[in-house]
């Protein structure tokens, strides 16, 4: 089994954050969960700068990204990740309250890996997070890097 790389959760709403963390906890994933509270912080983490200048190198296993975020919003973070040749293979899952078609279309245009409309029903949300967590955090092997890993 590959090294368990962290999950980057980008969420500004404290209640959503707590619920999502609870759902992830229920999945009993061993991955570390890194929380960023806005788009700028997320990009800092991804690029290892500012507050994250000293973090251990390596990309997260998956980014769970809220669409509406302060400073730099979710779509913009997604765009930066997916247009960055080094980061583009990082799986990004969009989490959103929105059922708006244009958000969905825009996300897919930008190369999102999955798009989850947060359901009102907590159990449904839990299931969605669990599926995602399992798939991206555990099963989904990162593509081999030039210098290899592990």
């Amino acid at each position, binding site marked *: 089994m590959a090294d368990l790389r962290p999950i980057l959760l980008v969420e500004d709403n404290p209640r*959503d954050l707590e619920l999502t963390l609870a759902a992830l906890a229920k999945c009993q994933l061993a991955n570390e969960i890194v929380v960023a509270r806005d788009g700028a912080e997320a990009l800092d983490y991804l690029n290892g700068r500012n507050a994250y200048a000293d973090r251990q190198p390596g990309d997260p296993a998956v980014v769970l990204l809220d669409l509406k975020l302060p400073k730099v919003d979710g779509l913009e973070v997604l765009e930066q990740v997916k247009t960055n040749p080094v980061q583009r293979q990082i799986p990004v899952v969009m989490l*959103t*309250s*929105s059922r*708006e*078609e244009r958000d969905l279309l825009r996300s897919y245009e930008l190369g999102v890996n999955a798009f989850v409309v947060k359901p*009102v029903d907590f159990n449904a949300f839990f299931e969605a997070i669990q599926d995602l967590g399992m798939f991206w955090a555990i099963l989904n092997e990162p593509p081999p890097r030039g210098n290899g890993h592990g």
Partner: protein
Amino acid sequence: MNDVTTDPTIDLDACAAEPIRIPGGIQPHGALMVVDPVTLEVLQASSNLPDVTGLVGGLPEALAAELRDWAASDSPAFMRTMAVGARNLQVSAHRTAQGLIVEFEEPPASGVEARDMLYLRLRQFLEAVGEVDDIPAIAAIAVREVRALTGFDRVLLYSFDAEGVGTVLAENGNEVLPSYLNLRFPAADIPAQARELYKLSRLRLIPDANYEPAPIEPPLSPLDGRPLDLSFAALRSVSPVHLEYMRNMGTGSSMSISILVEGELWGLISGHSRDPRRVDAQVRTACDVLGQILSLQIEAREQAVRTADRLALKNVEAELVAKLSTALNYQTGLGDNAELWKQLARAEGAAVVTEEGVLSVGSAPPEDQIRRIAERLSEMDVTELAIESMAQRWPETEAFAERASGLLAVSISQIHSNWLMWFRPEVIRTVEWAGEPQKQRELGDRLHPRKSFQLWKEQVRLRATPWGQVDVESARSFRSSIQNFVLRRAEERAELTNRLVEINKELESFSYSISHDLRAPFRHVVGFAELLNDRAGERLDPTSRHYLQSITDAALSAGQLVDDLLNFSQLGRAGLKFSRVDVSKLVAEVRRSMEPELEGREIEWRVGALPSAWADPAMIRQVLQNLLHNALKYSAGRNPAIVTIEGEDLSDSTSYTVSDNGVGFDPAYAHKLFGVFQRLHRSEEFEGTGIGLALVKRVIDRHGGTITAHGVVDGGASFTFTLPKRLRAEHPE
């Protein structure tokens, strides 16, 4: 642009052919010589010069000296009473390109006394015309004064209309000659060339209609080799045709004075005597001055009348424009203010022709004829037209001439054939002619003027009162108002459209933020309630667990409500993607998707043959989902529940009916079924947000279809919707 509808004129323009300015001779009551302007050498002379003046050879020294002084001055004309050789003569001179023309006549009867008398008369004339207002009254004073000055048997004042027809406005006479008051003289009586000359040279005298002209010798000017131009010579010999005209009229002598108004020949004062009559140069000058005073007076009064008319019409226009500004569109505004609209051009009827149709008020032609007139105007490629007889131009319009003969039309669009029109009805008039004009027309020999001046009455038909310049100007000005109005409305519409686009954007961002922000709290409520249940559920007493469940249920249904509402509002905005929809297949799919909810229920499906539809498949799926969902929901208590789905292929639509054997509804409330949040059942009986049928109706409306509901309490419900068939031309596959 007043369209002058002149008859194919009877012009006796013998004139056109006749050299009235270069007759080659003079009237023999005086004599004429032409002298070189520098050397004063005699270049030409009338054959009667020695008889009249006693001069043979050159100019007497005294006259030569005076002429030389005058020729060097800038005084326009020379006039003296002086001794010429042995005789006392009236000498006048004017400059021409062919030399100085010097004319000799017998002097006025008595010198200074007569002159004082003339000034007195002129002053009296001025005072008299100052006291009257209307033109006929001024004309009456003028003819009285001219007769007193000249002693003619009869003095007439004619005015000419646009076509040159003269009408006798005033007359003063001693009854030796017949009265012509109010009679008309055809335009041809004064040929065009003569009219031109009358504008240049204001006074003509023919003391004896039976004169023999005295020829000019030599006939051609030594200076330019051409016949001598006598345009400005008082003694100019007139056309033999004119002399014959005078003799036919029974007059032996005549004098006429031009009345020029704004540079045009407005009319003539013309004096006649049965016998020959001389009018000396001083009296002629006095008459000329009188004519000029009269011209100015007429001009002033005509302008006053025109200004008053113009002002009145401007007021009408201002009032109408004010009314239009509050109207829905200018056509409606015009129709609602028909009186003002007609008054604007002093008409009896009016119409407006646009792409939207024809609107007419008052005495106007039938609608199809108005349309036809607009077509003709467009074919003519004009932007305005004012005619008093449409029948003369377009004979078939005679059918409605009684209602509308005169037409004043202005175009109000550069792109379309849009016209504003005014109509005036036929005015049948009896016109009294001095002689029958038609007879003149039939005269074979054009060099013979008419012989009859007998009163002849004519009925003028198919003609309206002519449009005045003020009417045309008023119509023109109103055209700009209408064009401005149309422009302003277009701007307002554009502004409204912008505002709508803005509002739509706001609405969209509103619903966008609702979809994000309003759902979140419900999600949180449900989430935390579940977490609490996970952690403490086992420790809670049943009542507390019930409360917790209620919190979750309430938040879930509120979340569902938000989702439904958003779905509903998105339906109004999303574009329809039409295609051929296999409705049978769609029904099967929807049924399959519902199967999990229906476990344990006994349901009898009765699905008939369903025609395919031309629709947006995703939206029709929503319709079927909602209708089937309702059918199953309200038949929940039946065993078995029967759901029937039938279709019908109609000529221009397809129709589908979903019915059930459920609880039905009270038909009295059928109209409330399709409103948002309208529910006919208590929520604990049947759950739902009250949006489903509103959504169904919206989808069907957007497809251009219809939906109806039938129900009986406890007797089931049925919903029928129709979808229009595809219009081949609009949606090519």
